């Protein structure tokens, strides 16, 4: 009896302290919903249209993300529960958005990259809920929800009108192909999140997480700076054709860039901010002095602040303004919609850093919430056992469709090739696991690598490499 009383006593203050963030997130969600509602009411038209529903989903996914972060800061276990509820509500709104789009266009929403992201996020949220409820991986959402938020932000920026299908896309096989693709990619994303969970549970060193997070963030900023930094500190972004809602093209596939003066320096500073923890980590390793790591962790915190500032500056400078172009005379408008991947990358970098902080501050709490390492390892394997046949089916139906449309089932198109590479990587995982008995960490690394390849296949190939697969 006395034990029980003590437990209640101990729980009560934590719960009180926890309510503050719940109230805050609740207020935030309510505020955003009301502003959205007012905006929608002012604009007139149907309140329950797709973009509003998607916005609701975004708000709730972001709420879930904030609650996971809140858990990271305070360690209040009930945040996780509410985050799960947020995920579920977001999922419902997301489902309605998909259904509305389907109803509106009279076909499953799989034709453009926008629609694919829509289905991807939906599947991701569904699998997150399944992993939470069925396998007890309660905090898997802390990785999948930020991913969902990044995707939804990308979607808000990508052109979303329901476009009629070009002749090559009109086939039942397309829907089968893309459904399988989205299911398998989302399953791969979940297996990635599970593998990360495994590393957290398995005492993968926090310092290494620091190193990898910094590498990822530096990689994102390095990519932006390397491709977009203009002389004298400008940042070049794609010009935006306001009327046609598309990028401005000079020729076939050649985009017109405009330069935003001085913004490039900010990105360089953010890059340095991301590199600093990495450098400090290596200093700590080479000099065997852990005090550098403490500084590195502070540097991550500063880095996040820097990134937020840069993100803010970027949004303000880019939003609906016009700049000159070094390539062609005149002033051209640009828009956030013209730079979805810079924006997505920046948001992803912030999320990655925040996740690291959450790990740094609440590692033991996270570990307590997770099921055993064995279970995580097994569930990762299970998700890949689901993803792999789906991937195979995706490639086979894609080949069949290409054969009926382009007259060849395999033409070594970049998208095809990268799908095959993804398939080979996961095949490697399965072989290593079954014949060499790879378990635990090595298997987890493999699952993480696999998802990296998936991301490249899904987004990287579409935007970086040329090919037939121009639709997505």
């Amino acid at each position, binding site marked *: 009896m006395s034990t029980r009383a003590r437990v209640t006593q101990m729980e009560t203050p934590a719960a009180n302290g926890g309510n503050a963030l719940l109230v805050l997130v609740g207020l935030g969600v309510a505020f955003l919903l009301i502003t959205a509602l007012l905006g929608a009411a002012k604009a007139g038209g149907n309140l329950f249209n797709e973009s509003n529903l998607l916005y609701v989903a975004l708000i709730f996914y972001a709420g879930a993300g904030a609650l996971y972060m809140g858990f990271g800061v305070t360690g209040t276990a009930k945040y996780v529960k509410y985050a799960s509820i947020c995920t579920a509500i977001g999922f419902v709104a997301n489902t309605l958005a998909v259904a509305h789009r389907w109803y509106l266009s009279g076909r499953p929403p799989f034709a453009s990259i926008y629609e694919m992201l829509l289905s991807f996020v939906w599947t991701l949220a569904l699998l997150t809920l399944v992993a939470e409820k069925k396998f007890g991986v309660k905090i898997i959402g802390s990785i999948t929800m930020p991913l969902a938020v990044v995707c939804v932000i990308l979607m808000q920026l990508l052109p979303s009108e329901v476009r009629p299908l070009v002749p090559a896309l009109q086939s039942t096989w397309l829907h089968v192909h893309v459904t399988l693709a989205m299911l398998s990619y989302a399953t791969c994303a979940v297996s990635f999140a599970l593998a990360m969970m495994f590393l957290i549970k398995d005492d993968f060193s926090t310092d290494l997480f620091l190193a990898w997070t910094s590498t990822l963030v530096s990689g994102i900023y390095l990519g932006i700076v390397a491709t977009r930094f203009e002389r004298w500190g400008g940042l070049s972004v794609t010009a935006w054709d306001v009327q046609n809602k598309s990028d401005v093209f000079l020729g076939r596939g050649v985009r017109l860039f405009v330069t935003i003066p001085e913004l490039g320096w900010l990105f360089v500073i953010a890059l340095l901010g991301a590199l600093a923890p990495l450098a400090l980590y290596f200093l700590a390793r080479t000099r065997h002095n852990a005090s550098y790591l403490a500084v590195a962790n502070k540097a991550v915190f500063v880095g996040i602040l820097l990134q937020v500032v840069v993100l803010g500056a970027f949004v303000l400078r880019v939003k609906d303004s016009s700049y000159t172009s070094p390539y062609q005379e005149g002033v051209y408008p640009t828009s956030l919609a013209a730079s979805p991947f810079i924006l997505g990358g920046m948001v992803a970098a912030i999320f990655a850093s925040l996740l690291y902080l959450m790990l740094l501050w609440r590692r033991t709490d996270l570990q307590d919430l997770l099921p055993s390492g064995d279970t995580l390892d097994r569930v990762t394997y299970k998700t890949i056992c689901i993803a792999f046949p789906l991937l195979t089916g995706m490639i086979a139906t894609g*080949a069949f469709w290409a054969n009926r449309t382009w007259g060849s089932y395999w033409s070594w198109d970049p998208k095809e090739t990268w799908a*095959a590479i993804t398939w080979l990587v996961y095949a490697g995982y399965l072989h290593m696991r079954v014949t060499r008995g790879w378990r635990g960490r090595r298997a987890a690394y493999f699952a993480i690598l696999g998802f990296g390849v998936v991301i490249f296949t899904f987004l990287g*190939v579409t935007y970086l490499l040329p090919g037939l697969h121009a639709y997505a």
Partner: protein
Amino acid sequence: MAFAMLSIPKRIYRTLANLRTGVVLLILVVIASALGTFVLQRPVTEPDKLQAAYSPQTLRWLDRLTLTDIFHSWWFLSLLALVSLSIIFVSLERFPNAWRFFARPYRKTDSHFRSANPYKLELPIRNADQGLNAAERALKKLGWPVERTVDNGQSSLYSEKNRFSVMAVYLIHASLLLIFLGGIIDGVFGFSGFMSIPQGQQRNSIELKNGKMKQLPFSVQCYSAGQEDYADGSPKKWWSKLAVVENGKPIQTKEIVVNDPLVYRGLRFYQASYWIDSKKVDGLRIAYSGLDSKVIPLELRFNQPVNLDTNTTVTLVEYLSDAFVRDGQVFKKTDNIGNVAFALEVADHANNSTAKVWLFPAEGSVLGAEKVKFQFKDPTSAKDIDFSPVTGLEVSYEPGQWFVWAGCLLMGVGLFVAFYMVHMRIWAVEVPDAHGKLVLWIGGAANKNKDRFEQKYAQVVAEIRNELDSNTPAARPFLQEKKERPELTMSGTK
């Protein structure tokens, strides 16, 4: 001497039959294919684009290293061949063991086996045979096939489900080889190319991907072709009515659309594109009136004279897609469709004279009308023009594709069996326990999805318990017996 010579192929076999070699080869394939997506590839990229992307020197080196056509280079194809060989050899190495396991499953239940088995527990029984009988009834009730085996006078039960699933791996690898085989057949015997046929004409040669022309033993006639648009003007559907013509006779006709090709003798003709040849028209419809002012509709085909009266004929002789007039002369401006112009030749056979009349439907004007006694009424009606559509057909001959599809289907089946069908085994034997008391030992094993097997195993055990209980209901009150029940002991639940 002979021995040393023999050992080289053997060594090659050993190397390729090693899974590690296979993994190294796969990594090489991955690297090469990734490279092939970063470097622009020859057949798909137009030469001028390649020249724009790389400096001449870089391009020369890329060409010399076959990096601009990796996927058809000899070394990439050899790499794929080595991968296939590796798959075959690795499978050959492993197959005998797997087959032994498959053909003669382990039914014995000796003490070493019992202690090593992952799922096991012991149930108390009253007398010999009571346990085995109960287990047999329970398993049959749950739909498990039951075998009784006797080993050294020890009788035991063996039951299993989905034994074939252990062979699924070989099915998957065989299907992969089948797909490769299809690819090789197509690489050697197959070809693909493009042919464009203007409406109303026939063609019998295709332009291959490498720019060479290939003659077909028959020709393809395009009766008509067209496009349907969405409301916003973007194309919705392309179609062409095609016929295969052999020895001057149409043999097969079909209207094809984008995802529905015409197939003849293994050659498939796909609707790939559609355009209007703005340089050509087939004909137009127009109205004219003679001296009696009666307006008569007239349909003109290119270069086909039409009688206006007994002495006069009119012929559509010239067409300009975009024309302009200067000093009474008509000139061509561009090849795009703009100010369309038609020249009609009006021949007066009585006077043996001809006159040329130009019609401009867009402007509604006529040039040279004063020279003839017929009036071409309302030239704007000449907008009813039969432009010459051209259908673009992708032609491919891929005899190996059936192997590919068969391989895909087989792989689907193989993956399903390998991932979702579990080889489950249950053994039951009566043995003395640590205190020398006779108990029923129940063991189980599964090759994957251990969570589900745990449930199945628990179900079987519960049913056997049930059978044991119902055998002697009065002697064992339910509650009392529950206490005595040993807990499930499991280890190695990985």
